């Protein structure tokens, strides 16, 4: 009964959303209350439908097909709750809930309604229809069988996973809002001021995308047992592309708000970033690309998702080319102006996203033109082509904040000079003294030092001249500096060793000694397996690590749990390979200096983004 109710509410919200679109275009209501009540009803219906599915999960109602394929009676209750978004249909429902929520928040806080929420509802309606007709989570598995349920994928039975999709979806869905604002502006162009909310909304989406992506990276780091934090996996890339485009959108809309320039560019970016996020959804859910994340393979679903994405892009760009004011295309800017810095920022970010997208879909293109041969595009391509672009971008990121709008000579010339020179000297010393000196290490550190000095200079100047300080911007950029530092040091200075050890045997890695101390078996409700105790002795310090290999009987899957000793300076990371004999294991140890800085930086970026509307003033 409850699943049927949930299904009914989902269909109801779909019809409601369609009504809002029709009324908004045919007979545009003057009153904001219409949009408010319609959005509230849609949101509540989806929310109750979400609750209905949660009830099916928590009561182990395996007559619901989706529950039967994604849950298990032995699953701890917390994971039963989170298992709702462990598969394709449920995660789509979560996405809808978040999207409807964002639209409601937008309608609540923005006065200018005319067509914006209607355009957002077009996306919502399309995805609702997709869920109801092609991915219905309430489908029944009848007659009720003796099944005890399959299981939530063991790799996903994990804390970071349970919050990774909701955060990511907050970001993806948030990109619908700037799109709606831009489309509304194109249809009834009154004043550029209408575009102002784009900035805050894109920053909020960006924050959640940042958090979602970094949670995924953190999860991959300790759960997949490879010790890497970024794999250039197609699914990671399809989150990175909207992130890069959204970053470009933020900066472009700042320029639009401040100087009324880059208007068309901002409008185009709202379409592109939404298209990027929908295309990512298509790549992940259609099964066109195989990846660690892939959902159920079904070409029909893919075609529908691709159609949604195609229609949004064509709709967006048709309006854009028919309605946009071409006079805004030319912007006069001096090479030392802030305008030019924003131009560089956007050019590089959009190029980077194009490079990542190309690398991600290249295997598909290759397969078509080679008549079925398959290739993979891996980390070497991505590292080779993205790192130089990213470094140049970061260099300009250090200079940009010190320039002025409309500037035609280098302001702060002395400061910029001092910052560049001191960074080069310092970086040379740091790289030489503390790390194995290499070119990338030197460049990476120099850029990080430049960034930090430039932000410090900016904060100092605001303080000195008693102006308001843009805390959100400084903290966000600082987060990126910390992240860059973590990437530079951990990528270039990690060491690793593979070995086979008997009980009480030791192996040396540099001056550290690794000993296999004990093996024992573990048994929990939803899995059983082996836990091995290693000691890691380094000078006088002895650390204990407990990597595991687990077997999840319900889904017949084996997983490895890395044993990690985290610290600010470095992580010691041991992952188990195969059991070789009684009390003997193959394992791999890795030492990763400053790897925590990567996620620390990302968290700072996330928090900074949430503070987008705040400015502090020193008294």
């Amino acid at each position, binding site marked *: 009964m409850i699943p049927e109710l949930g299904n009914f509410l989902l269909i109801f919200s779909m019809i409601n959303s369609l009504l809002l679109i029709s009324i908004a275009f045919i007979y545009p209501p003057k009153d904001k209350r219409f949009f408010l009540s319609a959005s509230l009803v849609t949101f509540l219906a989806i929310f109750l439908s979400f609750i209905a599915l949660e009830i099916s999960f928590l009561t182990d109602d395996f007559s619901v097909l989706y529950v039967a394929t994604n849950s298990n009676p032995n699953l701890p209750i917390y994971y039963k709750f989170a298992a709702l978004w462990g598969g394709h249909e449920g995660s789509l429902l979560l996405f809808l809930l978040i999207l409807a929520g964002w639209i409601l928040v937008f309608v609540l806080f923005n006065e200018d309604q005319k067509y914006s929420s209607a355009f957002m509802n077009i996306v919502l309606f399309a995805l609702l229809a997709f869920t109801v007709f092609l991915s219905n989570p309430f489908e029944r598995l009848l007659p009720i069988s*003796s099944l005890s349920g399959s299981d939530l994928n063991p790799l996903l039975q994990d804390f970071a996973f349970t919050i990774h999709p909701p955060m990511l979806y907050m970001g993806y869905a948030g990109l619908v809002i700037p799109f709606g604002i831009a489309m509304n502006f194109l249809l009834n162009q009154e004043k550029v001021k209408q575009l102002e909310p784009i900035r805050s909304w894109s920053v909020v989406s960006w924050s959640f995308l940042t958090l979602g992506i970094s949670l995924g990276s953190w999860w991959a780091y300790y759960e997949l047992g490879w010790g890497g934090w970024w794999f250039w996996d197609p699914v990671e890339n399809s989150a990175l592309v909207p992130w890069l485009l959204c970053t470009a959108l933020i900066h472009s809309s700042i320029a639009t708000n401040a100087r009324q320039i880059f208007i068309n560019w901002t409008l185009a970016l709202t379409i592109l970033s939404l298209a990027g996020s929908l295309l990512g959804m298509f790549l992940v859910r259609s099964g*066109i690309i195989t990846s660690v994340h892939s959902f159920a393979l079904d070409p029909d679903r893919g075609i529908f998702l691709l159609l949604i994405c195609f229609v949004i892009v064509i709709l967006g760009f048709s309006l854009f080319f028919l309605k946009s004011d071409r006079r805004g295309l030319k912007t006069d800017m001096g090479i030392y102006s802030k305008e030019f810095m924003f131009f560089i920022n956007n050019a590089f970010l959009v190029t980077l996203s194009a490079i990542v997208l190309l690398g991600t879909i290249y295997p598909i293109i290759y397969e078509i033109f080679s008549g079925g041969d398959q290739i993979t595009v891996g980390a070497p391509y991505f590292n080779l082509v993205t790192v130089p672009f990213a470094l140049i971008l970061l260099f300009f990121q250090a200079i940009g904040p010190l320039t002025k709008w409309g500037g035609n000579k280098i302001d702060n010339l002395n400061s910029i000079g001092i910052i560049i020179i001191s960074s080069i000297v310092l970086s040379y010393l740091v790289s030489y003294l503390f790390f194995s000196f290499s070119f990338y290490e030197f460049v990476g550190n120099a850029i990080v030092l430049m960034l930090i000095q430039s932000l410090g200079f900016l904060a100092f100047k605001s303080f000195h001249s008693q102006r308001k300080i843009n805390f959100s911007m400084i903290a966000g950029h600082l987060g990126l500096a910390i992240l860059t530092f973590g990437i530079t040091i951990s990528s270039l200075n990690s060491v690793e060793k593979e070995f086979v050890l008997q009980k009480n045997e030791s192996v040396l890695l540099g001056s550290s000694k690794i000993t296999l101390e004990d093996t024992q078996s573990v048994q929990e409700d939803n899995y059983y397996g082996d836990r091995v105790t290693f000691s890691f002795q380094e000078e006088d310090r002895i650390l204990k690590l407990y990597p595991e290999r687990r077997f999840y009987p319900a889904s017949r899957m084996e997983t490895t749990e890395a044993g990690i000793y985290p610290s600010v300076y470095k992580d010691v990371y041991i992952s188990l390979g195969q059991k070789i004999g009684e009390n003997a294991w193959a394992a791999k140890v890795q030492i990763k200096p400053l790897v925590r800085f990567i996620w620390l930086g990302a968290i700072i970026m996330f928090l900074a983004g949430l503070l987008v509307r705040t400015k502090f003033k020193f008294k």
Partner: protein
Amino acid sequence: MKIYPLLTILLAISLFGLLFFQLFLNSDAQGFNQKSLAPFKSKLLNGDSFTSEELKNDSLSLLNVWATWCVGCRLEHSYLMELEKKGISIIGINYKDDKEKAFKWLDQFGDPYIKNIFDDQGEVGFMLGVSGAPETFLIKNGDSIVMHHVGVLDKKVWKNKFAPLIKK
């Protein structure tokens, strides 16, 4: 100035066109590379022994990997029954399962298999390259795998992947 709209639309159409094309290509029966089948020995659910030599009696045989713990198997079961009614003989591989539960399942939902290999340790599955259940194999002359489908076998999959090969 008219060139930008044209370029953008062209770019969008070619990108989406490629993806559409690939989706249709994906659902085709072609593109599966034939593999050879290594000979194996196992036991049946009813206790008899089984060798892959027996597969050589038929030009084509269908192997279906199933288990009572697998929801997808429950889903495709009714279609397997349909295939059986059409006169297609299916050999089951009861994969990493419990004998009692397996018999109960066949009693409750019907038995579409002419024989059922009891692969409780997953050895036959390992040899075939099974990663889970359900999976279905088409074996030619008892020595080569001409199709390996991972996931639920339904009417559409049958029409796209298996029927063309059987007609040949």
